[in-house]
Protein backbone atom coordinates (compact mmCIF):
# COMPACT_ATOMS: atom_id res chain seq x y z
CA UNK A 1 0.00 0.00 0.00
CA UNK A 2 1.40 3.37 -1.03
CA UNK A 3 -1.10 5.89 0.18
CA UNK A 4 -3.84 6.45 2.74
CA UNK A 5 -6.25 9.23 1.82
CA UNK A 6 -8.82 10.79 4.14
CA UNK A 7 -11.70 12.41 2.29
CA UNK A 8 -13.89 14.64 4.42
CA UNK A 9 -13.69 12.18 7.29
CA UNK A 10 -15.61 13.29 10.37
CA UNK A 11 -16.10 11.04 13.40
CA UNK A 12 -19.78 10.48 14.13
CA UNK A 13 -19.28 11.96 17.57
CA UNK A 14 -18.29 15.28 15.93
CA UNK A 15 -21.04 15.14 13.33
CA UNK A 16 -23.00 18.02 14.88
CA UNK A 17 -20.04 20.16 15.78
CA UNK A 18 -16.77 19.44 13.96
CA UNK A 19 -13.71 20.59 15.95
CA UNK A 20 -12.78 24.06 14.79
CA UNK A 21 -9.42 24.44 13.09
CA UNK A 22 -8.76 20.74 12.45
CA UNK A 23 -6.52 20.14 9.47
CA UNK A 24 -7.71 16.55 9.23
CA UNK A 25 -11.40 16.18 10.14
CA UNK A 26 -13.57 17.25 7.20
CA UNK A 27 -10.56 17.83 4.94
CA UNK A 28 -8.75 15.88 2.25
CA UNK A 29 -5.43 14.58 3.54
CA UNK A 30 -3.06 12.01 2.07
CA UNK A 31 -0.44 10.04 3.98
CA UNK A 32 2.30 8.58 1.77
CA UNK A 33 4.54 5.63 2.35
CA UNK A 34 8.05 6.64 3.35
CA UNK A 35 6.99 9.91 4.99
CA UNK A 36 6.81 10.84 8.65
CA UNK A 37 3.80 12.66 10.07
CA UNK A 38 3.08 14.27 13.41
CA UNK A 39 -0.54 14.86 14.36
CA UNK A 40 -0.84 17.23 17.29
CA UNK A 41 -3.91 17.90 19.33
CA UNK A 42 -5.28 18.50 22.76
CA UNK A 43 -7.18 15.69 24.47
CA UNK A 44 -10.56 14.73 23.07
CA UNK A 45 -9.85 15.77 19.49
CA UNK A 46 -10.05 12.25 18.12
CA UNK A 47 -6.46 11.02 17.96
CA UNK A 48 -7.28 7.54 19.14
CA UNK A 49 -10.38 7.50 16.91
CA UNK A 50 -8.23 8.23 13.86
CA UNK A 51 -5.82 5.42 14.74
CA UNK A 52 -8.76 3.04 15.24
CA UNK A 53 -10.25 4.01 11.88
CA UNK A 54 -6.95 3.45 10.10
CA UNK A 55 -6.46 0.14 11.87
CA UNK A 56 -9.98 -1.11 11.24
CA UNK A 57 -11.16 -1.55 14.82
CA UNK A 58 -13.81 1.17 14.43
CA UNK A 59 -15.70 2.68 11.53
CA UNK A 60 -17.99 5.23 13.16
CA UNK A 61 -17.19 8.06 10.79
CA UNK A 62 -18.62 9.89 7.82
CA UNK A 63 -16.55 10.48 4.67
CA UNK A 64 -14.11 8.06 3.17
CA UNK A 65 -10.77 6.57 4.05
CA UNK A 66 -9.03 5.19 0.98
CA UNK A 67 -6.23 2.63 1.10
CA UNK A 68 -4.65 3.40 -2.24
CA UNK A 69 -8.00 3.62 -4.06
CA UNK A 70 -10.02 1.20 -2.02
CA UNK A 71 -12.61 2.28 0.53
CA UNK A 72 -11.43 1.03 3.91
CA UNK A 73 -15.01 0.36 5.02
CA UNK A 74 -15.26 -2.33 2.35
CA UNK A 75 -12.54 -4.44 3.94
CA UNK A 76 -13.77 -7.73 5.35
CA UNK A 77 -12.55 -8.89 8.78
CA UNK A 78 -10.25 -11.26 6.93
CA UNK A 79 -8.80 -8.43 4.86
CA UNK A 80 -8.26 -6.31 7.98
CA UNK A 81 -6.43 -9.25 9.51
CA UNK A 82 -4.24 -9.46 6.45
CA UNK A 83 -3.51 -5.70 6.57
CA UNK A 84 -2.67 -5.92 10.29
CA UNK A 85 -0.17 -8.68 9.56
CA UNK A 86 1.46 -7.29 6.44
CA UNK A 87 0.91 -3.55 6.07
CA UNK A 88 -0.40 -1.46 8.95
CA UNK A 89 1.16 -1.61 12.41
CA UNK A 90 -0.09 0.16 15.48
CA UNK A 91 1.01 1.12 18.94
CA UNK A 92 -2.19 1.88 20.78
CA UNK A 93 -2.35 4.38 23.57
CA UNK A 94 -3.67 1.61 25.80
CA UNK A 95 -0.88 -0.68 24.52
CA UNK A 96 -3.03 -3.84 24.70
CA UNK A 97 -0.18 -6.04 25.88
CA UNK A 98 -0.94 -9.34 27.60
CA UNK A 99 -0.03 -8.69 31.25
CA UNK A 100 0.50 -12.34 32.21
CA UNK A 101 3.09 -12.89 29.48
CA UNK A 102 6.69 -11.79 29.75
CA UNK A 103 7.94 -8.84 27.69
CA UNK A 104 9.64 -11.11 25.19
CA UNK A 105 6.66 -13.47 24.89
CA UNK A 106 4.40 -10.53 24.08
CA UNK A 107 6.73 -9.70 21.22
CA UNK A 108 7.09 -13.33 20.16
CA UNK A 109 3.32 -13.73 20.10
CA UNK A 110 3.23 -11.26 17.24
CA UNK A 111 6.43 -12.39 15.61
CA UNK A 112 5.38 -16.05 15.48
CA UNK A 113 2.42 -14.89 13.44
CA UNK A 114 4.43 -12.89 10.93
CA UNK A 115 7.86 -14.58 11.21
CA UNK A 116 9.24 -11.17 10.34
CA UNK A 117 12.03 -10.74 12.90
CA UNK A 118 14.73 -12.97 14.28
CA UNK A 119 14.98 -13.78 17.98
CA UNK A 120 18.29 -11.95 17.81
CA UNK A 121 16.62 -8.78 16.48
CA UNK A 122 14.09 -8.92 19.30
CA UNK A 123 16.79 -9.17 21.95
CA UNK A 124 18.87 -6.41 20.34
CA UNK A 125 15.82 -4.20 20.16
CA UNK A 126 15.01 -4.74 23.83
CA UNK A 127 18.65 -3.89 24.51
CA UNK A 128 18.53 -0.75 22.41
CA UNK A 129 15.37 0.36 24.19
CA UNK A 130 17.07 -0.20 27.55
CA UNK A 131 14.66 -2.88 28.75
CA UNK A 132 16.85 -5.96 28.23
CA UNK A 133 16.72 -6.59 31.98
CA UNK A 134 12.92 -6.87 31.74
CA UNK A 135 13.00 -9.45 28.95
CA UNK A 136 11.47 -12.21 31.02
CA UNK A 137 9.51 -10.10 33.47
CA UNK A 138 5.72 -10.36 33.25
CA UNK A 139 4.44 -7.22 31.60
CA UNK A 140 2.09 -6.65 34.55
CA UNK A 141 5.14 -6.12 36.75
CA UNK A 142 6.94 -3.46 34.67
CA UNK A 143 6.31 0.29 34.44
CA UNK A 144 4.06 1.84 31.83
CA UNK A 145 7.07 3.51 30.16
CA UNK A 146 8.73 0.10 29.85
CA UNK A 147 5.49 -1.38 28.54
CA UNK A 148 5.35 1.34 25.87
CA UNK A 149 8.74 0.24 24.61
CA UNK A 150 7.72 -3.44 24.60
CA UNK A 151 4.61 -2.50 22.61
CA UNK A 152 6.76 -0.56 20.14
CA UNK A 153 9.05 -3.53 19.61
CA UNK A 154 5.99 -5.70 19.06
CA UNK A 155 4.53 -3.25 16.55
CA UNK A 156 7.74 -3.47 14.53
CA UNK A 157 7.46 -7.27 14.22
CA UNK A 158 5.73 -7.24 10.86
CA UNK A 159 6.15 -5.96 7.31
CA UNK A 160 4.99 -2.34 7.35
CA UNK A 161 3.73 0.29 4.95
CA UNK A 162 2.31 2.50 7.69
CA UNK A 163 3.10 2.53 11.41
CA UNK A 164 0.56 4.29 13.62
CA UNK A 165 1.87 5.45 17.00
CA UNK A 166 -0.75 6.80 19.39
CA UNK A 167 1.13 8.88 21.96
CA UNK A 168 4.05 6.44 21.97
CA UNK A 169 6.34 8.24 24.37
CA UNK A 170 3.89 9.80 26.83
CA UNK A 171 5.58 8.06 29.76
CA UNK A 172 9.22 8.16 28.63
CA UNK A 173 12.06 10.35 29.81
CA UNK A 174 14.15 12.20 27.25
CA UNK A 175 16.86 9.51 27.05
CA UNK A 176 14.37 6.78 26.34
CA UNK A 177 12.42 9.07 24.03
CA UNK A 178 15.61 9.44 21.97
CA UNK A 179 16.18 5.69 22.00
CA UNK A 180 12.70 5.18 20.58
CA UNK A 181 13.24 7.85 17.94
CA UNK A 182 16.58 6.28 16.92
CA UNK A 183 14.99 2.87 16.53
CA UNK A 184 12.06 4.25 14.55
CA UNK A 185 14.28 6.31 12.25
CA UNK A 186 16.55 3.34 11.65
CA UNK A 187 13.75 0.92 10.85
CA UNK A 188 11.78 3.42 8.73
CA UNK A 189 14.86 4.17 6.66
CA UNK A 190 15.67 0.50 6.21
CA UNK A 191 12.14 -0.64 5.37
CA UNK A 192 10.69 2.53 3.87
CA UNK A 193 7.44 2.68 5.83
CA UNK A 194 5.51 5.76 6.86
CA UNK A 195 5.24 6.81 10.51
CA UNK A 196 2.16 8.61 11.78
CA UNK A 197 2.62 9.86 15.36
CA UNK A 198 -0.13 11.45 17.43
CA UNK A 199 0.80 13.57 20.39
CA UNK A 200 -0.67 15.89 22.98
CA UNK A 201 2.75 17.36 23.67
CA UNK A 202 5.55 14.88 23.94
CA UNK A 203 6.64 13.09 20.79
CA UNK A 204 9.73 11.28 19.52
CA UNK A 205 12.29 13.65 18.03
CA UNK A 206 12.04 12.57 14.38
CA UNK A 207 12.43 14.67 11.28
CA UNK A 208 8.74 15.00 10.40
CA UNK A 209 7.78 15.64 6.81
CA UNK A 210 4.49 17.14 7.88
CA UNK A 211 2.92 18.26 11.13
CA UNK A 212 -0.83 18.50 11.22
CA UNK A 213 -3.23 19.84 13.80
CA UNK A 214 -6.10 17.50 14.61
Amino acid at each position, binding site marked *: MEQITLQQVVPDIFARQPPAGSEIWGNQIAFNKGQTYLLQAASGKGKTSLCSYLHGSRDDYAGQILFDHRDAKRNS*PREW*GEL*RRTSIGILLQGLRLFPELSAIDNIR*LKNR*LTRHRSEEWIRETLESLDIADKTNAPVAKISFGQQQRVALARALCQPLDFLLLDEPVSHLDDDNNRRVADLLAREATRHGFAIIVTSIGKHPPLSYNQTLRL
Partner: protein
Amino acid sequence: MSIIRRLLLREHVSWTQLTGFFIAGLVGAGIVLFGVQAWADLHPFFSPDDGFIKKDYIVITKRVGALDLLNRRGNLFTAAERDELARQPFADRVGAFTPSRFQVSAGIQVQGAGFTTDMFFESVPDEFVDARDERWTYNPGDSEIPIILPRNYLNLYNFGFARSRDLPTISEGVVSMLRLSVRVTGNGHADAFAGRVTGFSNRLNTILVPEPFMAWANARYATAPPADPARLIIETGNPANKEIAKYFQQRGYDAENDKLNDGSVVWFLNILTTAVIAIGLLICLLALYLLTISIYLIIQKNSDKLRDLLLIGYRVREIAAPYQMLVVVVNAIVAVLAITAVLVARAHYIPFLTKIWPEFVPATPAPAIACSLALFVLTCFLNILALRLRLRKI
Protein backbone atom coordinates in the same frame (compact mmCIF):
# COMPACT_ATOMS: atom_id res chain seq x y z
CA MET B 1 3.24 -25.18 25.30
CA SER B 2 3.01 -22.45 22.70
CA ILE B 3 2.58 -18.89 23.89
CA ILE B 4 -0.93 -18.56 22.50
CA ARG B 5 -2.05 -21.82 24.07
CA ARG B 6 -0.64 -20.72 27.41
CA LEU B 7 -2.28 -17.33 27.01
CA LEU B 8 -5.71 -18.62 26.11
CA LEU B 9 -5.99 -21.81 28.10
CA ARG B 10 -3.80 -22.01 31.12
CA GLU B 11 -5.43 -19.55 33.42
CA HIS B 12 -8.98 -19.72 32.25
CA VAL B 13 -9.82 -23.35 31.81
CA SER B 14 -12.18 -24.42 34.57
CA TRP B 15 -11.06 -27.85 35.62
CA THR B 16 -14.31 -28.50 37.47
CA GLN B 17 -16.33 -27.82 34.33
CA LEU B 18 -13.99 -29.95 32.25
CA THR B 19 -14.24 -32.76 34.79
CA GLY B 20 -18.02 -32.43 34.65
CA PHE B 21 -17.97 -32.78 30.88
CA PHE B 22 -15.51 -35.60 31.14
CA ILE B 23 -17.65 -37.66 33.49
CA ALA B 24 -20.90 -36.90 31.65
CA GLY B 25 -19.28 -37.60 28.29
CA LEU B 26 -17.78 -40.82 29.53
CA VAL B 27 -21.04 -42.07 31.01
CA GLY B 28 -23.01 -41.07 27.89
CA ALA B 29 -20.55 -42.53 25.41
CA GLY B 30 -20.13 -45.63 27.58
CA ILE B 31 -23.88 -46.27 27.61
CA VAL B 32 -24.23 -45.72 23.87
CA LEU B 33 -21.31 -47.99 23.04
CA PHE B 34 -22.46 -50.63 25.50
CA GLY B 35 -25.97 -50.57 24.00
CA VAL B 36 -24.64 -50.86 20.47
CA GLN B 37 -22.23 -53.65 21.33
CA ALA B 38 -24.70 -55.63 23.44
CA TRP B 39 -27.24 -55.36 20.63
CA ALA B 40 -24.67 -56.54 18.09
CA ASP B 41 -23.69 -59.45 20.35
CA LEU B 42 -27.19 -60.55 21.27
CA HIS B 43 -29.23 -59.79 18.21
CA PRO B 44 -28.09 -62.72 16.02
CA PHE B 45 -28.88 -65.07 18.87
CA PHE B 46 -32.52 -64.09 18.85
CA SER B 47 -32.88 -64.14 15.09
CA PRO B 48 -31.24 -67.35 13.89
CA ASP B 49 -31.37 -66.61 10.19
CA ASP B 50 -28.58 -64.36 9.11
CA GLY B 51 -29.86 -63.52 5.67
CA PHE B 52 -30.35 -60.00 4.45
CA ILE B 53 -34.06 -60.48 4.89
CA LYS B 54 -34.70 -61.99 8.27
CA LYS B 55 -37.06 -64.93 7.97
CA ASP B 56 -38.77 -66.66 10.76
CA TYR B 57 -40.69 -69.89 10.98
CA ILE B 58 -43.73 -70.82 12.94
CA VAL B 59 -44.86 -74.40 13.43
CA ILE B 60 -48.58 -74.70 14.07
CA THR B 61 -50.99 -77.40 15.19
CA LYS B 62 -54.68 -77.43 15.86
CA ARG B 63 -55.67 -77.22 19.47
CA VAL B 64 -56.35 -80.68 20.84
CA GLY B 65 -59.65 -80.76 22.66
CA ALA B 66 -61.39 -83.52 24.65
CA LEU B 67 -63.73 -84.37 21.77
CA ASP B 68 -60.82 -84.95 19.44
CA LEU B 69 -60.37 -88.34 21.01
CA LEU B 70 -63.46 -89.36 19.12
CA ASN B 71 -62.72 -87.46 15.97
CA ARG B 72 -59.19 -88.39 14.92
CA ARG B 73 -59.28 -86.21 11.83
CA GLY B 74 -60.31 -83.16 13.85
CA ASN B 75 -56.78 -81.94 14.43
CA LEU B 76 -55.53 -82.36 10.87
CA PHE B 77 -55.20 -79.52 8.39
CA THR B 78 -57.37 -79.98 5.32
CA ALA B 79 -56.21 -78.91 1.87
CA ALA B 80 -58.67 -75.98 1.98
CA GLU B 81 -57.26 -74.78 5.29
CA ARG B 82 -53.72 -75.06 3.96
CA ASP B 83 -54.63 -73.07 0.85
CA GLU B 84 -56.31 -70.38 2.88
CA LEU B 85 -53.28 -70.13 5.15
CA ALA B 86 -50.95 -69.93 2.17
CA ARG B 87 -52.99 -66.97 0.83
CA GLN B 88 -52.53 -64.93 4.03
CA PRO B 89 -50.22 -61.95 3.51
CA PHE B 90 -48.04 -62.88 6.48
CA ALA B 91 -47.33 -66.38 5.16
CA ASP B 92 -44.44 -66.34 2.70
CA ARG B 93 -44.46 -70.12 2.36
CA VAL B 94 -46.34 -72.94 3.99
CA GLY B 95 -45.01 -76.47 4.32
CA ALA B 96 -46.57 -79.62 5.78
CA PHE B 97 -45.06 -82.14 8.14
CA THR B 98 -45.38 -85.60 6.67
CA PRO B 99 -45.50 -88.30 9.38
CA SER B 100 -44.25 -91.83 8.87
CA ARG B 101 -47.12 -94.30 8.42
CA PHE B 102 -45.04 -97.34 9.21
CA GLN B 103 -43.31 -98.74 12.24
CA VAL B 104 -39.81 -97.55 13.11
CA SER B 105 -37.54 -98.77 15.82
CA ALA B 106 -34.07 -97.43 16.41
CA GLY B 107 -31.27 -98.71 18.59
CA ILE B 108 -27.70 -97.99 19.58
CA GLN B 109 -25.03 -100.62 20.01
CA VAL B 110 -22.12 -99.58 22.20
CA GLN B 111 -19.50 -102.26 22.91
CA GLY B 112 -21.96 -105.09 22.80
CA ALA B 113 -24.54 -103.45 25.03
CA GLY B 114 -27.42 -101.67 23.43
CA PHE B 115 -31.02 -100.59 23.58
CA THR B 116 -33.81 -100.22 21.10
CA THR B 117 -36.88 -98.01 21.12
CA ASP B 118 -39.95 -97.51 18.99
CA MET B 119 -40.01 -94.14 17.38
CA PHE B 120 -41.36 -92.17 14.46
CA PHE B 121 -40.07 -89.96 11.67
CA GLU B 122 -41.38 -86.80 10.12
CA SER B 123 -40.29 -84.85 7.07
CA VAL B 124 -40.78 -81.31 5.81
CA PRO B 125 -39.83 -79.79 2.48
CA ASP B 126 -36.08 -79.12 2.36
CA GLU B 127 -36.40 -75.32 2.23
CA PHE B 128 -37.73 -75.36 5.81
CA VAL B 129 -34.85 -77.40 7.20
CA ASP B 130 -32.33 -75.20 8.99
CA ALA B 131 -29.64 -77.74 9.82
CA ARG B 132 -29.16 -79.47 6.49
CA ASP B 133 -25.80 -79.90 4.81
CA GLU B 134 -24.52 -81.91 1.83
CA ARG B 135 -25.31 -85.20 3.65
CA TRP B 136 -28.99 -84.29 3.74
CA THR B 137 -30.03 -86.42 0.73
CA TYR B 138 -31.65 -89.77 0.22
CA ASN B 139 -31.98 -91.88 -2.89
CA PRO B 140 -34.23 -94.95 -2.78
CA GLY B 141 -32.03 -97.94 -2.08
CA ASP B 142 -29.50 -96.08 0.09
CA SER B 143 -28.86 -97.99 3.31
CA GLU B 144 -28.05 -94.90 5.33
CA ILE B 145 -30.69 -92.36 6.44
CA PRO B 146 -29.63 -88.85 7.47
CA ILE B 147 -31.51 -87.72 10.57
CA ILE B 148 -31.87 -84.29 12.12
CA LEU B 149 -32.71 -84.09 15.83
CA PRO B 150 -34.09 -81.12 17.72
CA ARG B 151 -31.28 -79.34 19.47
CA ASN B 152 -33.33 -79.15 22.65
CA TYR B 153 -33.33 -82.99 22.89
CA LEU B 154 -29.59 -82.85 23.31
CA ASN B 155 -29.86 -79.86 25.64
CA LEU B 156 -32.46 -81.70 27.68
CA TYR B 157 -30.05 -84.57 28.11
CA ASN B 158 -26.93 -82.47 28.70
CA PHE B 159 -28.37 -79.85 31.02
CA GLY B 160 -31.14 -81.86 32.64
CA PHE B 161 -30.55 -85.57 32.72
CA ALA B 162 -26.76 -85.81 32.58
CA ARG B 163 -26.32 -83.09 35.15
CA SER B 164 -28.74 -84.68 37.62
CA ARG B 165 -27.09 -88.11 37.26
CA ASP B 166 -23.49 -86.96 37.02
CA LEU B 167 -23.29 -88.47 33.56
CA PRO B 168 -20.89 -87.03 31.00
CA THR B 169 -22.33 -84.47 28.66
CA ILE B 170 -22.37 -85.30 24.98
CA SER B 171 -21.33 -82.90 22.29
CA GLU B 172 -23.07 -82.64 18.93
CA GLY B 173 -19.95 -84.05 17.33
CA VAL B 174 -20.13 -87.22 19.42
CA VAL B 175 -23.79 -87.74 18.58
CA SER B 176 -23.00 -87.32 14.89
CA MET B 177 -20.47 -90.15 15.10
CA LEU B 178 -22.97 -92.66 16.52
CA ARG B 179 -24.60 -95.05 14.11
CA LEU B 180 -28.20 -95.90 14.87
CA SER B 181 -29.58 -99.21 13.73
CA VAL B 182 -32.97 -98.32 12.29
CA ARG B 183 -35.51 -100.99 11.54
CA VAL B 184 -38.50 -100.14 9.37
CA THR B 185 -41.43 -102.55 9.08
CA GLY B 186 -44.87 -102.53 7.49
CA ASN B 187 -46.85 -103.75 4.54
CA GLY B 188 -45.07 -107.10 4.69
CA HIS B 189 -41.58 -105.56 4.42
CA ALA B 190 -38.92 -105.31 7.09
CA ASP B 191 -35.61 -103.58 6.34
CA ALA B 192 -32.62 -102.45 8.33
CA PHE B 193 -30.98 -99.06 7.80
CA ALA B 194 -28.14 -97.15 9.34
CA GLY B 195 -29.22 -93.86 10.83
CA ARG B 196 -26.76 -91.00 11.09
CA VAL B 197 -27.48 -87.75 12.90
CA THR B 198 -26.29 -85.04 10.52
CA GLY B 199 -27.51 -82.00 12.36
CA PHE B 200 -29.46 -80.38 15.15
CA SER B 201 -32.37 -78.10 14.47
CA ASN B 202 -33.44 -75.10 16.48
CA ARG B 203 -36.53 -74.76 14.37
CA LEU B 204 -38.06 -78.20 13.98
CA ASN B 205 -39.09 -80.04 17.08
CA THR B 206 -39.23 -83.55 15.61
CA ILE B 207 -37.09 -86.43 14.38
CA LEU B 208 -36.57 -85.38 10.82
CA VAL B 209 -35.66 -87.43 7.76
CA PRO B 210 -35.32 -86.21 4.18
CA GLU B 211 -38.57 -85.87 2.26
CA PRO B 212 -37.47 -88.27 -0.55
CA PHE B 213 -36.94 -91.02 2.05
CA MET B 214 -40.35 -90.38 3.57
CA ALA B 215 -42.09 -90.48 0.19
CA TRP B 216 -40.32 -93.69 -0.74
CA ALA B 217 -40.81 -95.35 2.66
CA ASN B 218 -44.49 -94.39 2.97
CA ALA B 219 -45.09 -95.86 -0.46
CA ARG B 220 -43.26 -99.06 0.43
CA TYR B 221 -44.23 -99.73 4.04
CA ALA B 222 -47.52 -97.90 4.67
CA THR B 223 -50.85 -99.70 4.54
CA ALA B 224 -53.09 -96.75 5.48
CA PRO B 225 -53.80 -94.10 2.81
CA PRO B 226 -51.95 -90.75 3.04
CA ALA B 227 -53.49 -88.49 5.66
CA ASP B 228 -53.68 -84.71 5.97
CA PRO B 229 -50.81 -83.22 7.97
CA ALA B 230 -51.25 -82.47 11.65
CA ARG B 231 -48.54 -79.84 11.70
CA LEU B 232 -47.68 -77.03 9.31
CA ILE B 233 -44.61 -74.84 9.11
CA ILE B 234 -45.00 -71.25 8.00
CA GLU B 235 -42.24 -68.96 6.80
CA THR B 236 -42.91 -65.36 7.67
CA GLY B 237 -41.03 -62.08 7.57
CA ASN B 238 -42.23 -60.93 10.94
CA PRO B 239 -43.45 -63.43 13.52
CA ALA B 240 -44.40 -60.57 15.83
CA ASN B 241 -47.06 -59.47 13.33
CA LYS B 242 -50.27 -59.11 15.31
CA GLU B 243 -52.32 -60.40 12.36
CA ILE B 244 -50.76 -63.82 12.80
CA ALA B 245 -51.77 -64.18 16.42
CA LYS B 246 -55.27 -62.93 15.58
CA TYR B 247 -55.64 -65.35 12.66
CA PHE B 248 -54.46 -68.29 14.74
CA GLN B 249 -56.76 -67.43 17.58
CA GLN B 250 -59.79 -67.17 15.31
CA ARG B 251 -59.11 -70.58 13.83
CA GLY B 252 -57.96 -72.31 16.99
CA TYR B 253 -54.39 -72.88 15.81
CA ASP B 254 -51.53 -73.16 18.27
CA ALA B 255 -48.01 -71.98 17.53
CA GLU B 256 -45.92 -74.88 18.67
CA ASN B 257 -42.60 -73.35 19.56
CA ASP B 258 -42.16 -69.92 20.93
CA LYS B 259 -41.47 -68.25 17.64
CA LEU B 260 -44.19 -65.74 18.29
CA ASN B 261 -42.55 -64.99 21.60
CA ASP B 262 -39.15 -65.03 20.01
CA GLY B 263 -40.43 -62.25 17.84
CA SER B 264 -41.41 -60.33 20.92
CA VAL B 265 -38.03 -61.05 22.44
CA VAL B 266 -36.36 -59.53 19.39
CA TRP B 267 -38.81 -56.68 19.58
CA PHE B 268 -38.16 -56.26 23.28
CA LEU B 269 -34.42 -56.43 22.72
CA ASN B 270 -34.71 -53.76 20.03
CA ILE B 271 -36.83 -51.51 22.23
CA LEU B 272 -34.51 -52.02 25.18
CA THR B 273 -31.35 -51.27 23.24
CA THR B 274 -33.01 -48.32 21.51
CA ALA B 275 -33.99 -46.94 24.91
CA VAL B 276 -30.51 -47.52 26.33
CA ILE B 277 -28.84 -45.94 23.31
CA ALA B 278 -31.29 -43.02 23.38
CA ILE B 279 -30.51 -42.36 27.04
CA GLY B 280 -26.80 -42.60 26.28
CA LEU B 281 -27.16 -40.19 23.39
CA LEU B 282 -29.11 -37.79 25.57
CA ILE B 283 -26.34 -37.83 28.16
CA CYS B 284 -23.80 -37.35 25.35
CA LEU B 285 -25.80 -34.39 24.12
CA LEU B 286 -25.88 -32.88 27.60
CA ALA B 287 -22.15 -33.47 27.91
CA LEU B 288 -21.62 -31.80 24.56
CA TYR B 289 -23.71 -28.88 25.75
CA LEU B 290 -21.71 -28.70 28.96
CA LEU B 291 -18.41 -28.62 27.07
CA THR B 292 -19.73 -25.99 24.66
CA ILE B 293 -20.99 -23.82 27.53
CA SER B 294 -17.70 -24.29 29.31
CA ILE B 295 -15.78 -23.16 26.24
CA TYR B 296 -18.15 -20.24 25.75
CA LEU B 297 -17.38 -19.20 29.31
CA ILE B 298 -13.65 -19.36 28.66
CA ILE B 299 -14.15 -17.30 25.52
CA GLN B 300 -16.26 -14.84 27.47
CA LYS B 301 -13.57 -14.49 30.12
CA ASN B 302 -10.95 -14.14 27.41
CA SER B 303 -12.90 -11.86 25.11
CA ASP B 304 -10.60 -8.86 25.67
CA LYS B 305 -7.58 -10.98 24.95
CA LEU B 306 -9.17 -12.50 21.88
CA ARG B 307 -10.01 -9.02 20.60
CA ASP B 308 -6.44 -7.90 21.22
CA LEU B 309 -5.15 -10.92 19.33
CA LEU B 310 -7.38 -10.05 16.40
CA LEU B 311 -6.07 -6.50 16.68
CA ILE B 312 -2.46 -7.61 16.25
CA GLY B 313 -3.42 -9.64 13.21
CA TYR B 314 -4.43 -13.07 14.47
CA ARG B 315 -7.04 -14.89 12.43
CA VAL B 316 -10.15 -16.51 13.97
CA ARG B 317 -8.72 -19.83 12.81
CA GLU B 318 -5.56 -19.22 14.82
CA ILE B 319 -7.24 -18.15 18.03
CA ALA B 320 -9.67 -21.05 17.70
CA ALA B 321 -6.80 -23.53 17.46
CA PRO B 322 -6.05 -23.88 21.22
CA TYR B 323 -9.72 -24.41 22.00
CA GLN B 324 -10.07 -26.92 19.20
CA MET B 325 -7.08 -28.78 20.51
CA LEU B 326 -8.69 -28.86 23.95
CA VAL B 327 -11.93 -30.18 22.46
CA VAL B 328 -10.19 -32.85 20.40
CA VAL B 329 -7.96 -34.02 23.25
CA VAL B 330 -10.79 -34.20 25.80
CA ASN B 331 -13.14 -35.95 23.36
CA ALA B 332 -10.40 -38.38 22.34
CA ILE B 333 -9.73 -39.31 25.97
CA VAL B 334 -13.47 -39.79 26.52
CA ALA B 335 -13.71 -41.98 23.40
CA VAL B 336 -10.73 -44.13 24.37
CA LEU B 337 -11.91 -44.59 27.97
CA ALA B 338 -15.48 -45.34 26.90
CA ILE B 339 -14.40 -48.00 24.44
CA THR B 340 -12.04 -49.47 27.03
CA ALA B 341 -14.86 -49.62 29.58
CA VAL B 342 -17.14 -51.36 27.08
CA LEU B 343 -14.47 -53.88 26.12
CA VAL B 344 -13.83 -54.64 29.79
CA ALA B 345 -17.56 -55.06 30.47
CA ARG B 346 -17.78 -57.27 27.40
CA ALA B 347 -14.90 -59.44 28.57
CA HIS B 348 -17.07 -60.13 31.61
CA TYR B 349 -20.41 -60.81 29.94
CA ILE B 350 -19.16 -62.89 26.99
CA PRO B 351 -17.93 -65.86 29.11
CA PHE B 352 -21.19 -65.71 31.06
CA LEU B 353 -23.29 -65.83 27.89
CA THR B 354 -21.14 -68.58 26.42
CA LYS B 355 -21.73 -70.57 29.58
CA ILE B 356 -25.52 -70.40 29.42
CA TRP B 357 -25.77 -70.64 25.63
CA PRO B 358 -23.02 -72.94 24.32
CA GLU B 359 -23.75 -71.99 20.72
CA PHE B 360 -23.47 -68.27 21.46
CA VAL B 361 -21.13 -66.61 18.98
CA PRO B 362 -20.22 -63.06 20.03
CA ALA B 363 -19.96 -60.37 17.38
CA THR B 364 -16.66 -58.53 16.87
CA PRO B 365 -16.12 -55.36 18.91
CA ALA B 366 -16.20 -53.44 15.61
CA PRO B 367 -19.68 -51.92 16.18
CA ALA B 368 -18.63 -50.30 19.46
CA ILE B 369 -15.32 -49.10 18.02
CA ALA B 370 -16.99 -47.68 14.91
CA CYS B 371 -19.62 -46.06 17.08
CA SER B 372 -17.07 -44.46 19.39
CA LEU B 373 -15.20 -43.14 16.36
CA ALA B 374 -18.41 -41.72 14.96
CA LEU B 375 -19.31 -40.13 18.31
CA PHE B 376 -15.82 -38.65 18.57
CA VAL B 377 -15.98 -37.13 15.09
CA LEU B 378 -19.50 -35.86 15.65
CA THR B 379 -18.84 -34.27 19.06
CA CYS B 380 -15.61 -32.66 17.82
CA PHE B 381 -17.39 -31.35 14.75
CA LEU B 382 -20.29 -29.87 16.74
CA ASN B 383 -18.01 -28.40 19.41
CA ILE B 384 -15.71 -26.83 16.85
CA LEU B 385 -18.63 -25.49 14.85
CA ALA B 386 -20.11 -23.85 17.96
CA LEU B 387 -16.68 -22.52 18.87
CA ARG B 388 -16.05 -20.93 15.46
CA LEU B 389 -19.51 -19.38 15.40
CA ARG B 390 -18.94 -17.91 18.85
CA LEU B 391 -15.47 -16.58 18.00
CA ARG B 392 -16.78 -14.82 14.91
CA LYS B 393 -18.95 -12.71 17.20
CA ILE B 394 -16.01 -11.48 19.29
